[in-house]
């Protein structure tokens, strides 16, 4: 006897279609808003002369981290500039910054809520597992009917893909706060809000920063992949090199991604350490 195949794909497609038609006004609004954000951040970063932005970033590295990182950042950025990849690098950076910002803005309250409510915790953790293990490309497909080809779709997919660590680490950080300290705060009559702001969040900050660091790294990798659905930036340079079979160009863009990744990673890590 033949067991009929379960039309899982059809159902999901039907659901997505319904969502897109039902909420087209909303999605179009979001799309326009996000695109404006992307454009203005891009424009202002590109309005600065290359050397000026390079100096600002190096200075930032020096202030937050070390002179070594400052020198490394300056050298790396100079190489990107020299290779003629400055503007794609800015476009990628913009996407990462915006996607990370949105992801963190959503992740913090969700992570806090999951830490404070056992019910929510049991609901959210499997959802996070699902989000993280689903192959990254799959998010790109529904993004298109919602937001069309381009950078907005890229950000949508990136936010979903990169958000889980920020949620997870926020929850973990808050749950790790020793019970004695919670008890001490209670004993002095702290409200829930005071406990959160004065004890739980400050003590979990290093852990939360570790989560944000991971979110940034995931966002960068996704933004590069999102070139497949028309996101601008270093990813599209790689994509073009593949189509034209020019490995040299591909590697140059790839190296630019690596430099950007290392810069963002070291910078957020030292931000975390300086807070401890």
């Amino acid at each position, binding site marked *: 006897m033949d067991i009929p195949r379960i039309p899982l794909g059809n159902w999901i497609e039907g659901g997505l279609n319904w969502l897109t038609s039902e909420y087209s006004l909303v999605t179009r609004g979001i799309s326009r808003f996000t695109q404006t954000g992307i454009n203005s951040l891009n424009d202002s970063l590109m309005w600065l002369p290359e050397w000026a932005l390079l100096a600002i970033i190096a200075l930032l590295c020096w202030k937050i981290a070390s002179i070594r990182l400052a020198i490394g950042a300056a050298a790396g950025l100079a190489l990107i500039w020299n290779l003629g990849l400055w503007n794609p690098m800015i476009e990628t950076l913009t996407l990462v910054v915006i996607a990370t910002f949105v992801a963190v803005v959503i992740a913090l309250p969700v992570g806090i809520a999951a830490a404070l409510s056992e019910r929510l915790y049991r609901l959210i953790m499997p959802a996070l597992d699902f989000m993280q293990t689903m192959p990254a490309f799959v998010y790109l497909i529904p993004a298109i009917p919602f937001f069309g080809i381009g950078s907005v779709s890229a950000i949508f997919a990136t936010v979903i893909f990169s958000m889980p660590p920020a949620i997870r680490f926020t929850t973990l950080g808050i749950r790790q706060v020793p019970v004695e300290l919670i*008890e*001490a705060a209670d*004993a*002095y*009559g702290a409200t829930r809000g005071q406990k959160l702001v*004065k004890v739980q969040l*400050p*003590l979990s900050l290093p852990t939360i920063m570790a989560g944000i660091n991971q979110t940034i790294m995931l966002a960068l990798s996704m933004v590069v992949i999102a070139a497949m659905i028309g996101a601008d930036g270093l990813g599209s340079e790689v994509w073009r090199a593949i189509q034209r079979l020019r490995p040299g160009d591909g590697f140059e863009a790839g190296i630019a991604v690596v430099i950007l990744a290392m810069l963002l990673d070291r910078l957020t890590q030292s931000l975390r350490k300086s807070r401890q």
Partner: protein
Amino acid sequence: MDETRSVKIQVRGLSKVFGKQPKKALELRDQGLKRPEILEKTGQTLGLSNISFDVYEGELLVIMGLSGSGKSTLIRCLNRLIDTTEGDIIIDGENIPTLGEKALLECRRRHFSMVFQNFALFPHRTVQQNAEFGLEIRGIDKVERRDIAHTALKQVGLEGWEDAYPNQLSGGMQQRVGLARALANDASVLLMDEAFSALDPLIRKDMQQELLQLQSKMQKTTVFITHDLDEALNIGDRIVLLKDGEIVQIGTPEEILTQPADDYVRRFIEGVDRSRVLTAESAMRPVRTTARSSDGPRTALHRMRDHSIDSIYVTDRDRHLLGLLEAETASRAIEAKAETITDYLTQDFRKVPPEEPLQNLFAMFSEKSFPIAVVDKQQRLLGVVVKGAVLDELARAGEQ
């Protein structure tokens, strides 16, 4: 005990069951079962059973018992860090177990400061910020709370450490911060859960001494928990003895030592009956400093200051005891430009021979509580006995 003192906290019929069906556990309790049987039958722990006692205004009440006797549970029921199962806890007319969430917060802020066994300092806050915590929670403005916290830190001897972080301090200093946090808060009751148990013995003695000094200055109502008889005898005005979640005796250290309520208490202070054979000599300490009759008042006063005492025994060259000089009197002698202190001595103190039974000494500590002088037959000063030493000696005898 002094019936005229006003009652600060009234605890009546307080019970606590850890578990999901407290009613069942209490039913069994009412049928006369004890903690171990109730645990076996219901899987629930009878943490506290039918506890009633008063905490008087300004006293230092010690709750003592072995580990697991329910001390931490009891102190946490007072400020409701643990919800009670039945009974009343009344402070200034409010019944704590029935308070709503808001009223409970308000009650904790107004009435309770707490010091914890493992300090529970906030590692991300400086010493100063830790001391300010209670005030910050209550919304006291910045300038005011800085001053108050500063004063509290000074009281516990931590001036100059305001900007350090807790992990830069030794255990003893950390607990001073914990104490400063509690003092700064100026709540009406101080709760201390084994506050000195994590400290090493010498530092622990110091802290007990300092707590006593603070206590005599501020008269703060204090509930102090310990599992250590020595500590309880040393600092307690009264002691509540807990066993398996029940009170076995309430009384002053003297009462507990001299009239143990039952065999349990007797075993706790076992050997203490030997107080009958213990004598003044065993609790006597060498005199740290004396004055000579030929000394001027300034010299005598200077010696008292050096040893932080406010009276000094005066002897002749052969250590014959002549009298006692109080700091106040010495000051008057200085004003009167007296050459020697001979005319300013008092005989208003107790002296005993070395073979005086220790138990007789309890009654001798007068209001002013000068140390008792121990003298030989020729009236030579051999040593002194201070109040704490009598209890220490009895306690030590109990441990042997």
